[in-house]
């Protein structure tokens, strides 16, 4: 027993050391270590109680994800969601119709496209890594080694050219990293149902550690009058894993197994230089 107690004490001290970087209670959070990453739990958003719901599976169609037994299916969005504009419903219906007609609707990340914001944090299976300095944060996804750049304590640029990950500025509020993103192009989706967005999408993400640092919780606010009647507030948890960021490349050639009519992968028709 004494040994067990010493062991617990040592574990406590070590945990205390890990947390003392965050002491007092609401000091700047540390999401970053050479051997620590975060893996998204599930591939859908969780609604914030009392607010509008994110897009869910149409109850008329059963969704079978990979690795649960049975033939996997592709998602069919429930377009009766009352928070969607007609533009969003029309876009989702087109996707639903394609799935029902047999088109393989693998996720955009599976087809090696940049996932955008906030889709980046829904990318499944592989860990997300942080790098934090006084002035900047990098979010590096192992999936395709995609990178988001966050500039701390600076305003947005007056003119932002739309891009895949937009322009992100951030600051810390106590134990929370707040990231504000604009300037996103309209070629990504805000979820894995392929809910679209316009280039007016404004995303505010609030990242903090919960459950003693075992999970990273992100609250995401999406404002885009072209898609959502009311701003949508959702959350996503990611589990801490011991991992080192690996080189990982999605497309090392044209991927089109079995000749499916799948989305193309990014490719240059002629060399950049």
């Amino acid at each position, binding site marked *: 027993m004494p040994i067990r107690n010493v062991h617990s004490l040592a574990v406590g001290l070590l945990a205390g050391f890990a947390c003392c970087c965050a002491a007092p209670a609401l000091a700047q959070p540390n999401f*970053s270590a050479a051997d620590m990453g975060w893996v998204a739990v599930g591939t859908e958003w969780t609604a914030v109680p009392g607010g509008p719901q994110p897009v869910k599976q149409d109850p008329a169609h059963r969704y079978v994800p990979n690795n649960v037994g049975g033939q996997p299916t592709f998602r069919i969005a429930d377009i009766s969601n009352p928070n969607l504009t007609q533009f969003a419903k029309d876009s989702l219906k087109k996707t639903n119709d394609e799935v029902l007609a047999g088109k393989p609707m693998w996720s955009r990340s599976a087809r090696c496209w*940049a996932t955008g914001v906030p889709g980046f944090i829904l990318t499944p299976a592989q860990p997300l890594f942080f790098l934090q*300095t006084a002035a900047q944060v*990098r979010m590096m996804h192992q999936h395709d080694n995609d990178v988001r750049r966050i500039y701390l304590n600076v305003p947005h640029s007056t003119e932002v050219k739309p891009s*895949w990950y937009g322009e992100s500025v951030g600051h810390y509020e106590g134990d929370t990293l707040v990231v504000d993103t604009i300037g996103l192009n309209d070629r990504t989706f805000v979820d894995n149902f392929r809910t679209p967005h316009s280039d007016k999408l404004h995303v505010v993400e609030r990242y903090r550690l919960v459950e003693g640092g075992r999970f990273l919780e992100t609250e995401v606010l999406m404002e885009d009058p072209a898609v959502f009647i009311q701003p949508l507030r959702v959350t996503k948890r990611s589990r801490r894993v011991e991992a080192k960021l*690996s*080189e990982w490349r999605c497309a090392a*050639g044209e991927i089109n197994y079995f000749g499916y009519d799948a989305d193309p992968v990014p*490719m240059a028709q002629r060399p*950049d230089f």
Partner: protein
Amino acid sequence: MDDLCGRTCSTPALVVAFAALILAGPAFGQGKAPDISGTYWATQYNAKVQLVGGGELPLTAKGKEAYEKNMAGLKDGSITDDARKYCTPDGPVRNLATPYPFEIFQAPPGQVTIIHELNHQIRVVALDKPTPKYEELVAFPFYNGHAFGRWDGDTLVVESLGFNEKTFLDATGAPHTDELVTTERIRKISPTELEIVVNVHDPDYYTRDWQARFVYKQRNDVRLEDYVCGEPHRDITTVAGVRRP
């Protein structure tokens, strides 16, 4: 808390680890290391790698055969330049010739992270870890290899190995084997300039080790941009030697 330790972890080991963390204090991680962090951008691009001291690549007979095969294949299209067509990582030496900006972060602690705009390559350099043997990495080959670094005065010395054989050392198709070992010496040569000298050790293809030198301007005013294959990207024609098709 079990995930902090697990069954293999003994109490003394934990106490020692904890003590080491405390004793290491500010020297742990980037504390006293020279500062090479920043955004860097080359001012010169060469499709063909330029050797320190000049001259041609010291190819072995096997190396010459491989180079000729690469050059012919790239010309007639039977070999694809995946780094340009599918935007896979450029691989050793060629990644140093990038005409796009890149960033060096001395973070997280125990690591130097190099992030390239071109092909969103991330190179993770593990600091002060023993370099594994080729046999330990051969089952996990990476385009850019596995990188291990240590400080030698003002210079970060990065040894890389565990490469796949899908890349060329330059845009003309200079070959390498999967037994290649590169050693990069990375240092600031002025407040606004970074130098990387890489040593190439690949005895199967080269009769002797050879070196190439790259100099970059510090450009902390530049923000890296998203790079998605086949899209229009930033203007790099200001970099001497760049030709866009």
